[in-house]
């Protein structure tokens, strides 16, 4: 039985009309040879299960007066085992756009780099930078065409373009949402709690950075699958800068220092009579 691969031919298959960008031969979506197997559905199911446990992470991003604040933890977990405490979850697509990683590490790294290539080609072809709207749409369309194949990507694209700060949430189910505040991953409920109670549009860069750092810290405290280092990045009109990378273990003791215990009764040597 010959499987129908027409959905995989190009990265914008849905509307039929050809996109100039894809006809130039450089930026067609990479095509992957599918494995030769008698049970393709079973293979798909297994490959989805293999990546499934991996959305153990906390990432967040929000827009405020001075731009976009992006923060993430750095733990990679496989079920209960911590495989790394030093994973870079904020991916630098280009000097003015950041992407966050949640889900399969390989999927996020590969497709973000692919997006960076496409953005650069857009710049060369159109003599101006691509907008955050456009970049997120490119990624969303690629992920939609691989829908059901087992990719696991929950990412936020944050950047500053001509319209000002931009933030989009894009995932491997094909969803794409524009918004001002997002958190993705198993630690996101805890991060949302802190973020929602402290958020104001008029925060300064330092206040917003502290809010983002605190939100990641609280998520790493409560969520078992988040931890390591809380990295905070700021995207401003001149591009992104990394503001801080604090070890969450040390952050705990700086927020909640250990009080010396009050000694109620102390034993001393009895004086020999």
């Amino acid at each position, binding site marked *: 039985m010959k499987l129908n691969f027409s959905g995989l031919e190009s990265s914008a298959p849905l509307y039929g009309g050809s996109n100039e960008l894809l006809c130039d031969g450089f930026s067609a979506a990479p095509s992957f040879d599918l494995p030769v197997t008698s049970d393709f559905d079973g293979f798909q199911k297994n490959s989805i299960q293999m990546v499934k446990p991996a959305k*153990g992470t906390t990432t967040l991003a929000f827009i405020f007066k001075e731009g976009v604040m992006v923060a993430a933890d750095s733990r990679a977990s496989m079920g209960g085992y*911590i495989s790394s405490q030093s994973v870079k979850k904020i991916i630098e697509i280009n000097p003015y756009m950041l992407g966050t990683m949640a889900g399969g590490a390989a999927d996020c790294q590969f497709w973000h780099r692919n997006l960076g290539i496409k953005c650069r080609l857009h710049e060369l072809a159109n003599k101006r930078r691509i907008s955050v709207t456009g970049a997120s749409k490119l990624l969303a369309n690629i992920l939609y065409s691989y829908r059901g194949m087992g990719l696991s990507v929950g990412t936020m694209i944050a950047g500053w373009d001509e319209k000002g700060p931009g933030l989009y949430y894009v995932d491997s189910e094909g969803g794409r949402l524009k918004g001002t505040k997002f958190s993705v991953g198993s630690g996101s409920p805890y991060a949302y709690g802190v973020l929602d109670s402290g958020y104001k549009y008029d925060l300064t860069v330092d206040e917003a950075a502290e809010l983002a750092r605190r939100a990641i810290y609280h998520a790493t*405290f409560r*969520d*078992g*699958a988040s931890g390591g280092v809380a990295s905070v990045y700021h995207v401003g009109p001149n591009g992104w800068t990394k503001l801080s990378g604090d070890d969450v273990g040390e952050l705990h003791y700086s927020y909640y220092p*250990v009080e010396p215990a009050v000694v109620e009764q102390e034993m001393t040597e009895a004086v020999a009579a």
Partner: protein
Amino acid sequence: MSIFEYNGSALVAMVGKNCFAIASDRRLGVQLQTIATDFQRIFKIHDKLFLGLSGLGSDAQTLHQRLVFRHKLYQLREERDMKPETFASLVSAMLYEKRFGPYFVQPVIAGLGEDDKPFICTMDSIGAKELAKDFVVAGTASESLYGACESMFKPDMDHEELFETISQALVSSIDRDCLSGWGGHVYIVTPTEVTERILKGRMD
């Protein structure tokens, strides 16, 4: 995730020169969410006998209550404390009674027996005893703990060196486990005194 990994736990016991140490983590979670950071997993049965229970928190607490009851009855009848070897056999028998509907726990028993000779043992959830001369481990971080203890353990350590060793082994192992951690709890028991210490650990 299996039922043994539902709450998350890490336990280790080590033998030293005329002393022993037993240590646990302090986290109680519901799968990935952390509920408490001061959960008690090591229980004193009498001054020279400690019991650690890893695995499902509810079964750990229930089994501890039942064992305290049996030990109190023993004390009333025999007018003395139970020896660690006897206690281990009691735990093993109680676990096997529930062979076809077991308690989801892995106990670690540590005590000073006759002539204050240290005794440690662990069991699986249906009572298979494993006696060891050096160290025993249990919990979700057990594989990391085996590696850490194997490399850090030396025979006949005194109680201060034993404390350092067991603390380092525990902390380095739970730092590689999502489901255990958030501090450590160490008991060092010698023939004359019991020292209880809380370890400052990574709270992530």
